[in-house]
């Protein structure tokens, strides 16, 4: 039972319950796989002792007949989640050595359900990036490759995507502020869902842009996403924006029957210069859903074009406020001071040393758009445009659309370092199809649907109605069944 590349959360769960394998055996196999995959730089803090203790506890629990779905399942945890006594750095130098005295709600829930933590996963610094190249730990690497070139696994949840695609864990937590679960999932041929804003508690997750951040699972298939998402969801009094709603059984929603469901195809997502492969993938996906009995309808989301510029006001503005706490006083790193330096020099030197260039850039842009004289022109205008973007979605859902199908990304994974000299906006364009979903607070899922000419995976995105992740997962399941994506990266690491 160490054929890790065939195992899923669902099949491991069933095998564990039947006694065909123990969590200790699974955990050992994954710890071995992680050790052999250092070159991917996906895991950045390994926690074998924690994992082994949790696996032993899970095995005892399974034996006693109490086995929640996630019991004994080995996972990777994005470095953005605070894990008690274990380094939690948001891939930033400013949180060097930070070991929280508390556990995030999401990891608490997963561990209470019996899940096993193998270690912490690489990511872009403070989740700001689309290629995992802003991490203080160095680049995470995509297990998919073209020739000798190393590719990005996407970002910000690049380590999570790489680890799941390379079979270093059965599933991973991710977070998504503008596409950070869905874009890396698409780049690595895995599935990732960002739930409705408020579905998953943000407590204990290092904040980037609080009105946009949501955590979600990154897994090998749709069923696994349904299982893991359910364990992560739920009301949390410690997050005032967490929704007090019952959590449905998402796995039970996966019937594959989408007859009569109305699927919207938004014309504004047909971008100028879109690669023909992406266009073809989108058309193929549309045909698949139609063949499954869905009703395909052309729709319009007129403010789509303004989503990225609105996002690049709102997200930096919130980030500049959230990241004000990194001041060298309460946690993390403090810069070495010179004689005579006062508290202002301490702040300025600490933040210059501790934050990388992209984080500094966004904090300063956020500071600017919130500063006196510009607040209305930038920040308030962006919040008005955000309201219009949400209204676009409200209108199509009110007209009877059940889900919206779009490409997940404008391209397949690109080479690490190839965007180094591009201006920041080129990198921002990676999120052009995903960012609208965060601005509108909706659930969105990326499903692998095909390969490009170089043999790299491409994903399609489905966007659902608020709080209807179950329905969304079911449409994704139907698409997955039709697309029949089974390709895996050739092991070279």
């Amino acid at each position, binding site marked *: 039972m160490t054929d890790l590349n065939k195992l899923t959360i669902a099949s491991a769960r069933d095998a564990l319950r039947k006694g065909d394998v123990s969590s200790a055996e699974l955990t050992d196999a994954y710890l071995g796989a992680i050790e052999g995959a250092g070159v991917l730089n996906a895991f950045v803090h390994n926690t074998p002792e924690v994992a082994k203790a949790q696996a032993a506890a899970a095995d005892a629990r399974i034996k006693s007949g109490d086995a929640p779905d996630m019991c004994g399942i080995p996972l990777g945890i994005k470095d953005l989640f605070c894990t008690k006594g274990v380094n939690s750095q948001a891939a930033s130098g400013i949180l060097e050595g930070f070991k929280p005295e508390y556990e995030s709600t999401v990891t608490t829930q997963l561990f209470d359900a019996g899940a096993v933590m193998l270690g912490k996963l690489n990511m872009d610094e403070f989740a700001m990036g689309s290629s995992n190249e802003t991490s203080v730990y160095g680049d995470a690497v995509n297990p998919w490759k073209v020739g000798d070139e190393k590719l990005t696994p996407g970002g910000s949840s690049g380590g999570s995507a790489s680890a799941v695609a390379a079979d270093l864990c059965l599933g991973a937590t991710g977070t998504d502020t503008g596409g950070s679960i869905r874009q890396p999932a698409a780049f690595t041929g895995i599935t990732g869902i960002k739930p409705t804003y408020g579905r998953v508690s943000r407590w204990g997750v290092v904040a980037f842009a609080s009105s946009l951040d949501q955590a979600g699972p990154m897994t090998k298939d749709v069923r696994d996403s349904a299982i893991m998402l359910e364990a992560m969801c739920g009301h949390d009094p410690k997050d005032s*924006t967490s929704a007090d709603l019952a959590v449905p059984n998402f796995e039970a929603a996966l019937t594959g029957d989408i007859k009569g469901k109305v699927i919207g195809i938004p014309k504004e997502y047909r971008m100028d210069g879109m690669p023909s492969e992406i266009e073809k993938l989108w058309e193929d996906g549309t045909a698949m859903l139609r063949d499954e009995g869905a009703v395909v309808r052309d729709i319009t989301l007129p403010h789509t074009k303004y989503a*990225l510029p609105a996002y*690049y006001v709102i997200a930096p503005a919130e980030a500049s406020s959230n990241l004000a706490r990194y*001041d060298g006083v309460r946690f993390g*790193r403090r810069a070495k*001071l010179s004689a005579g330096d*006062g508290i202002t*020099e301490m702040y300025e030197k600490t*933040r210059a040393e501790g934050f990388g260039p992209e984080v500094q850039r966004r904090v300063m842009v956020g500071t600017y758009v919130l500063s006196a004289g510009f607040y209305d022109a930038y920040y308030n205008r962006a919040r008005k445009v955000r*309201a219009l973007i949400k209204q676009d979605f409200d209108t199509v859902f009110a007209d009877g659309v059940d889900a919206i199908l779009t490409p997940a990304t404008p391209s397949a994974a690109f080479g690490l370092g190839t965007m180094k000299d591009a201006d920041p906006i080129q990198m921002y364009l990676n999120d052009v199809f995903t960012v609208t979903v965060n601005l509108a607070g909706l659930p969105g899922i990326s499903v692998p649907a095909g390969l490009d000419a170089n043999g790299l995976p491409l994903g399609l995105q489905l966007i659902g109605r608020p709080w209807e992740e179950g329905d969304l997962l079911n449409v994704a399941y139907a698409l997955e069944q039709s697309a029949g994506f089974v390709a895996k990266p050739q092991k070279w690491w």
Partner: protein
Amino acid sequence: MSIDTDTARRVAKLARIKVEDDALPALAQEFSAILGFIEQLNEVEVDGVEPMTSVTPQRLKRRVDVVTDGSQQDAVLKNAPDAREGFFAVPKVVE
């Protein structure tokens, strides 16, 4: 809008991030490019639109105004770069 080096210096100061003088022109140029991108928002008709404050139409929950946590001085100070005698320590603030 074009950002000059003085504005870049002022923003860096407001953000409490030390930027050396020789790095300011490049920073100003980056800001100008990003703000140029953002300025597309000026094309949108927003008259009468309320700025979004909450993406889901839910009321924030209330709870009884009582102490629910506390007495965790050690845990609070545990990760401080400099903690002494039960306090966070910082460079001298008062002359």
